[in-house]
């Protein structure tokens, strides 16, 4: 008992759209997780390595604690913490040992840190949930974590835990997109095999 739960984001550079999207998706899950952690009185810790992401996460966790009337458990300097990008690696490894992390979430845009953190958390016997949409490090999250979400599932996770009907129904919309992609590929491949060039379709100037 008393061992903490960590929520890690990986890379959180919000000026980069391809990193921003998974980070925002992970924020929605953070909101839910922080609330559960506050309700159960678990020690919760969120280190981040980018200023704007830090301000967002700090708001989210604070609001979650407020919603559960546990604001006294929220330490503005400790629960959510900014660490300069790069230095967070040493901090996290050292403190995973020291605090014997019991549970860890690895959601967001993950780069090389994924394997360091997951392996260290595994050594502490932590239960891990990992998920990212970066293709570079998803293998480690899949192989090492107890539970993993792959690619698009990361975006669905946030909508799913929100229990908002409209948000969940947007997932069905995404499925329509996938059916469209599959049909487009199949018809396109058949047409190309038949010798019909489709390059005009993609030369619309965009």
């Amino acid at each position, binding site marked *: 008992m008393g061992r903490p739960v960590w929520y890690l984001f990986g890379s959180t550079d*919000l*000026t*980069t*759209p*391809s990193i*921003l*999207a998974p980070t*925002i998706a992970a924020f929605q899950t953070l909101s839910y997780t922080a609330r559960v952690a506050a309700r159960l009185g678990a020690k919760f810790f969120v280190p981040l390595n980018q*200023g*704007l992401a830090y*301000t*967002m996460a700090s*708001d989210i966790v*604070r609001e979650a604690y407020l919603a559960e009337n546990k604001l006294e458990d929220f330490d*503005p300097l400790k629960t959510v913490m900014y*660490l*300069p*990008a*790069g*230095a967070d690696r*040493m*901090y996290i*490894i*050292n403190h995973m*040992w*020291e605090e014997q992390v019991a549970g860890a979430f690895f959601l967001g845009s993950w780069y090389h840190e994924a*394997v360091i953190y997951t392996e260290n958390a595994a*050594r*502490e016997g932590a239960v891990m949930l990992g998920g990212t949409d970066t*293709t*570079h490090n*998803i*293998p*480690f999250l899949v*192989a090492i974590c107890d539970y993993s979400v*792959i*690619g*698009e*599932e990361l975006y*669905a996770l946030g909508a799913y835990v929100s229990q908002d009907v409209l948000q969940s129904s947007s*997932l*069905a919309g*995404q*499925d329509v*997109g*996938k059916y469209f*992609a*599959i049909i*487009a*590929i*199949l018809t*396109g*491949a*058949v*047409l*190309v*095999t038949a010798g019909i060039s*489709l390059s005009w379709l*993609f030369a619309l100037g*965009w």
Partner: protein
Amino acid sequence: MDMIWLGLIVGSFVSIGAYTVLIGDNPISKITEHLYTGILAGYTLAINWDFVMKNAVGKVQGGQFDFIIPIILSLMLFTRLKPEWIWISRYPVALTVGVGMGLAMRASVLSDFVGQIQGTLLPINNINNIVMIIGTITAASYFLFTTKYSGPYKYVNQSGLLFLLVAFGVTYGSTASFRFELVIGRLVDMLRPDVAMYTYGFLVLVAIILIYGYTTKRIPWYKGR
């Protein structure tokens, strides 16, 4: 010349300090951690201060008065130091998320969605193209949320997973190779003939501390797990 030589020695010392996190929680890695965090925080502060001065304040001084707005937005971020005012900092966040999300959406429509479909429109005349088409389709359908996991979809789903796992295996292998290159890049600097003596000396020191800690069990941070 002396500064370069000193730099190499300091560089290899702090590198070994960083490598000691592999051993576990220990004072050398703690010291390196705080040193590194401090320097990096100072560096981040300085470089971003320079950036804001050059690109916002400098431009306002140069007569581009619309750059007053980002300065105000930046100052709005600092209101969060007082809990009642936190909502003010939502405005800069709204700007960032709006712009970023818009860029992400438009980019993913074109280069990810359309571009990848376009790349898969291959003539079905050899095994490579067939593998490509089937793999792309099944891997995409692995992520269908609304389809029940039964009937023929079960096989589609499993073969999609197969392709994804192959991709993961390839990434695993190439990442492993890349990591070795990284260590080698670092070791090449640390084991240069002119600084190697110091590196070895420091390594021996770390080793002695570790062996002492292990044999006497006197150092509490050395926990076998």
